[in-house]
């Protein structure tokens, strides 16, 4: 007997823990990635020839041996580009497809080879003879500053109140520096593009990209074609994490160049090592801070400088370093604040988007300041965090002058501290550490507040296209891309909910610039917020037409038409959805619609550093417990408890996956993932043998993850859900702080360990040693 109280739900509607739409294909090996697409006859394989200097003039480039190599059909250099030799995503014309004149990082593409097989192209690409005249190379933040601090874009300055005066007047004041490493995306599917030439010089590109519209524009720009000559399509990516927001441009452009020049399909898939060497990563930062505070640990004034190694071009470094500043507060109110970014140009690969987009680095500055205050005053860092949370009269304005209206951080932290038994465990750990000679434990709880919206306001728009066929099945297309995050599943759930039809009746189709134009990148956690709303709008347009038709046909008022699971109630009768659709078709009702959405209320004036750049904030908190070996610096993350909010979750299973996956990825960034360049500017950690992302055995042996309940988004987002792609990444700050807590035990918590990231065993041991030497 049905539960009278429970509303009837459509299978796979919103809020159901529906499996990823491709799960069956994933586990059976049937999911098609770009390298799996049937290869057209005559397809050529491409490979890139890469620069072997970090900074040098190209004196001569002899590609004779490349052209003569077995299987080679063509070699392409900048001279072969009919349009512009540039794929800068921000219009700065500082990102050449192929370097000319000067190379500006080790691994920069110089030319491309087309051959019958990939192996032939790859072997030939190594045969280029390039004569270089070295120019002094600037490889990191310190060197960039020493060389005059050239910037790749304008810095941002945020200010509220009078930080200098507050610092001068504060009863306590301290300064410090934190270094934060970068991170390789390590998407399992590397960069890849398959271009197929069409008539009139047109080209279709299958690109593993988060941003098909940008790839379309870049290919057109490079080939000298109008955008309408280029179609970009992507069904799914094998991971992206920001690494395919702009970085796919070059690969797509080269494939399209070869395809249009040769009149053959062309595929470019670099080896993992070349992918890691030649594509951008998360920015590493040097954060300088100066904080004044009172006896209770309240921040009175703070001044931050966030210097980032941006690499050889701007790429997205402007918005990334901006977002770092937007998160220099994390969850904390600063009465007086001044913060500046320093986006430094270096002779390293141009750094780019990566989950969190500068936000994680920004927050680490805030959390370091909290930690410094706690150690200076001998307080539990949690107490200092709580003392500084946003909230209360006049304590709700960010450094960029947006009000924090939806603050749930204090409640989440309280709830988590209780459920994870933080206080008692902290006491037990301190007792343990008093008697443990070698192994020391640490615990920390850190919150997250992450701003949701692209800070480039115009990006906050989306389109969708929905067709209802006469058999009642639905074809769904939207501008977002599927990279594993379950976006397509969530958007399909929204459409199924709108029509009240079984999710299995909704077909998710590949993202294509030919179906939905002028889309934004699937980035900034915005995928389901934007595309869910656009798809819902399209579906509701059709539903409205159906409702109007039904009302007219049956002579009832429109409000007496209701969409129920699988059927429509019209007055006193119920009609199967499919039957209504058929009738509507016969009556010549349009069963296709586009949908559009733009985020309301947001605005941002970068020049003044004021505005309302974020539609809302997403919150979470985590407690981590670790054990370190003070003889070697080795450690284990033993237990993690997470409480994270997703508003009214569209799909709790998918959201949980984002939370767990984001946390572990963040933990990798802050622990074992270390990018290491040698003195010549060569990245030496360019494969999984040398670059270590977390393994299953790195997952804490106790890993409690809870999605907060009863926290509907205050804003009218899609079904009052919240974005969940990036925010959980920053929950991993708890691990760094727990390691720091363990290190601090060696001097009885008298000194802030100032543990930098990534906290490799080597850095942990160095911190232990430094503290002991100074104690």
């Amino acid at each position, binding site marked *: 007997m049905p539960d009278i109280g429970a509303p009837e739900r459509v299978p796979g509607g919103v809020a159901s823990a529906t*499996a*990823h739409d491709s*799960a*069956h*294909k*994933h*586990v*059976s*090996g049937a*999911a098609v990635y770009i*390298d799996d697409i049937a290869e057209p006859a005559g397809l050529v394989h491409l490979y890139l020839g890469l620069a072997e200097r970090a900074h040098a003039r190209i004196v001569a480039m002899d590609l004779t041996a490349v052209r003569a190599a077995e299987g080679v059909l063509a070699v392409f250099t900048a001279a072969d580009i009919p349009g512009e030799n540039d794929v800068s995503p921000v219009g700065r014309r500082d990102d050449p497809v192929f370097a000319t004149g000067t190379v500006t990082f080790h691994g920069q593409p110089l030319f491309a080879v087309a051959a019958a097989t990939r192996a032939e192209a790859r*072997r030939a690409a*190594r045969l280029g003879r390039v004569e270089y005249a070295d120019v002094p190379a600037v490889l990191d933040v310190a060197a960039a500053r020493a060389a005059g601090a050239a910037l790749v874009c304008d810095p941002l300055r945020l200010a509220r109140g009078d930080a200098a005066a507050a610092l001068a007047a504060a009863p306590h004041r301290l300064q410090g520096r934190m270094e934060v490493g970068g991170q390789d*995306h*390590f*998407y*399992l599917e590397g960069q890849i593009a398959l271009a197929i030439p069409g008539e009139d010089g047109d080209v279709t590109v299958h690109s593993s990209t988060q941003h098909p519209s940008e790839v379309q524009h870049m290919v057109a720009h490079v080939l000298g074609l109008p955008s309408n000559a280029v179609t970009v399509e992507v069904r*799914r990516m*094998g*991971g992206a994490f920001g690494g395919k927001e702009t970085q796919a441009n070059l690969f797509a452009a080269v494939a399209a160049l070869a395809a249009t020049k040769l009149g053959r399909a062309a595929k470019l898939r670099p080896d*993992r090592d070349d992918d890691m060497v030649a594509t951008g990563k998360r920015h590493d930062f040097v954060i300088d801070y100066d904080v004044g505070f009172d006896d209770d640990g309240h921040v009175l004034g703070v001044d931050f400088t966030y210097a980032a190694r941006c690499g050889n071009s701007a790429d997205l470094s402007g918005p990334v370093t901006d977002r770092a500043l937007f998160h220099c507060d994390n969850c904390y109110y600063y009465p007086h604040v001044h913060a500046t970014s320093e986006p430094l140009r270096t002779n390293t690969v141009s750094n780019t988007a990566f989950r969190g987009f500068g936000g994680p680095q920004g927050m680490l500055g805030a959390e370091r300041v909290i930690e410094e205050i706690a150690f200076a005053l001998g307080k539990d860092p949690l107490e200092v965090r709580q003392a500084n949370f946003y909230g209360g009269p006049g304590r709700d304005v960010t450094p960029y002058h947006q009000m924090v209206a939806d603050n749930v951080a204090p409640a989440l932290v309280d709830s988590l501290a209780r459920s994870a038994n933080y206080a008692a465990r902290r006491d037990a750990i301190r007792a343990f550490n008093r008697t443990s000679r*070698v192994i020391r434990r640490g615990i920390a709880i850190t919150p997250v507040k992450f701003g949701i919206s692209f800070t480039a306001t115009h990006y906050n728009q989306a389109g969708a296209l929905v067709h209802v066929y006469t058999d009642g099945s639905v074809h769904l297309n939207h501008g977002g891309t599927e*990279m*594993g*995050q379950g976006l397509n599943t969530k958007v399909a759930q929204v459409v199924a909910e709108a029509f009240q039809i079984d999710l299995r009746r909704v077909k998710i189709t590949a993202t294509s610039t030919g179906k939905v134009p002028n889309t934004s990148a699937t980035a900034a956690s915005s995928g389901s917020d934007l595309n869910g709303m656009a798809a819902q709008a399209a579906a509701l347009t059709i539903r409205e037409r159906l409702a109007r038709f039904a009302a007219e046909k049956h002579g009832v008022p429109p409000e007496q038409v209701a969409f129920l699971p699988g059927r429509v109630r019209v007055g006193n009768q119920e009609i199967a959805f499919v039957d209504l659709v058929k009738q509507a078709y016969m009556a010549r009702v349009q069963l296709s619609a586009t949908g559009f959405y733009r985020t309301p209320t947001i605005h941002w004036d970068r020049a003044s550093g004021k505005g309302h750049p974020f539609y809302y904030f997403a919150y979470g908190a985590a407690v981590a417990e670790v*054990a370190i*070996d003070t*003889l*070697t*610096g*080795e*450690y*284990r993350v*033993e237990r993690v408890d997470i409480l994270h909010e997703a508003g009214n979750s569209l799909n709790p299973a*998918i959201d949980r*996956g984002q939370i*767990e*996956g*984001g946390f*572990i*990825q963040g933990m990798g960034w802050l622990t*074992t993932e270390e990018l*290491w360049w040698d003195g010549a500017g060569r990245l030496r*950690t360019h*494969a*999984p*043998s*040398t670059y*270590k*992302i977390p*393994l*299953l*055995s*790195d*997952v804490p*042996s106790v890993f409690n*993850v809870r999605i907060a309940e009863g926290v509907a988004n205050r804003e009218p987002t899609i079904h009052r859900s919240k974005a969940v792609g990036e925010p959980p990444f920053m929950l991993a700050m708890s691990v760094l702080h727990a390691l720091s807590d363990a290190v601090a035990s060696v001097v009885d918590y008298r000194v802030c360990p100032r543990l930098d990231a990534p906290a*490799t*065993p*080597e850095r942990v041991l160095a911190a232990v040693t430094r503290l002991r030497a100074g104690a």
Partner: protein
Amino acid sequence: MTRSVVRFLLGEEVCTLTDIDPTATLLDWLRATRRSLGTKEGCAEGDCGACTVVVGTPMDGTMRYACIDSCIRFLPTLDGCQVLTVEHLAREDGTLHPVQQALMDCHGSQCGFCTPGFVMALFALWLNAAQPDRGAIEAALQGNLCRCTGYAPILAAAERMYALGDRDADRWRTGGVATAARLAAFQDGETIALQHGGRRFFAPADAEALAAILLTHPDATIAAGATDVGLWVTKAMRVLDPLVYIGRIAALRTIAETAEQLELGALVSYTEAWPAFARLHPELGRLLRRIGGAQVRNAGTIGGNIANGSPIGDTPPPLIALGAEIVLRKGDTRRTLALEDFFIAYGRQDRAPGEFLECLRIPRLPPDALFAVYKVSKRRDEDISALCGAFRIDRDADGRITQARVAFGGMAATPKRAPACETELTGAMWTQATTERAAAALDADFAPLSDWRASAAYRSQAARGLLMRFYLETAGGESLAHLDDARSAAHA
């Protein structure tokens, strides 16, 4: 007697290949030639596991299945084997295998690119272990990277899959005898000899043929599991000519445990050696767990680990500390060498042209000897050591140290003993003061390099720390000197 045809089973299909590139990888053949596209390439170096397949070999009348990385497995080395890929698991009617169903039920895939590799690694676990504990699951999945899920749902799937089907009714378990019989028909004593593009490949079936081939081709590259040699091809694009594959030689795959020693043929894989190593000393078992992932342990050999001559060498430091010796053979001539003398300099070993490593002998420790080996790496599992220290101490009735053998990897151009440290230890009592003196002496023994795995300063400091850990653990009074013990204590 030679043949130039390679025969194996792909699922149930007999594949008979001629004129194949000897260093073509199984992955490239699956994807490019067969267009069997479920198996993915993530790194082409045996570190990410996206290309994982299961390879079956006949053993004692049935099949033994193990996962391997197809990206670094040379195609002709599959002769006489059965290859199973992700496409072979679901039934013809589309019913998923319990491994696949469990991953789906637990939301174990996001982008899905690593998923076929996880499916196959879990499938190997399913075939070989009933109800593994978390430690066994971790060990089975150390060779698979996932960047999306954070692994929690995959761990859940590894537990759940056993509830979704009857292992004993699995067709790949019940069909083992029949498959082994089919493959027996492929077995012969003939050497496989391939010529392709001017390059030569030999795969002798027995040690006598191997010895003869190496006399004729003394500079041949010898490959067994090819977990390193494979990368010479996939990463360095080296041309290997001639290449001699020794994996068919059963006589090199023997394990003999006696009261005095453990003797391993050069072809014994890490996986095969693991139980015997653990019986020799639990510390050795603990080390084996931290070498590669399951795929690499299944393919890679102890002999290869030695003969390869890596400056780090996971097993050489403890084997040197234990006083192991190796037997090298050229033609019918054999010589025995202390392992420590095999490593001459970076990239140079005491192996003459035409000579091959035949076996390894590890003497048993006296019952009261103290021994430990510690590997330090950036990531705990499936990482190359920043350093690896092995320590062995014998004491007389008064507790005075009569012999000390200390060996390190990652601290010099070869795995190497620490004579100054040993001198400080020998003749002294095993005390903290002795340990501190001996630790300080390590600075005289080693001048390590700085690289991406660790700085020189860290290596030196950690090396001293490892000796202190050895003291604290063995001298008693410090039950929590080891992080593994700490972990189990915390969650017992």
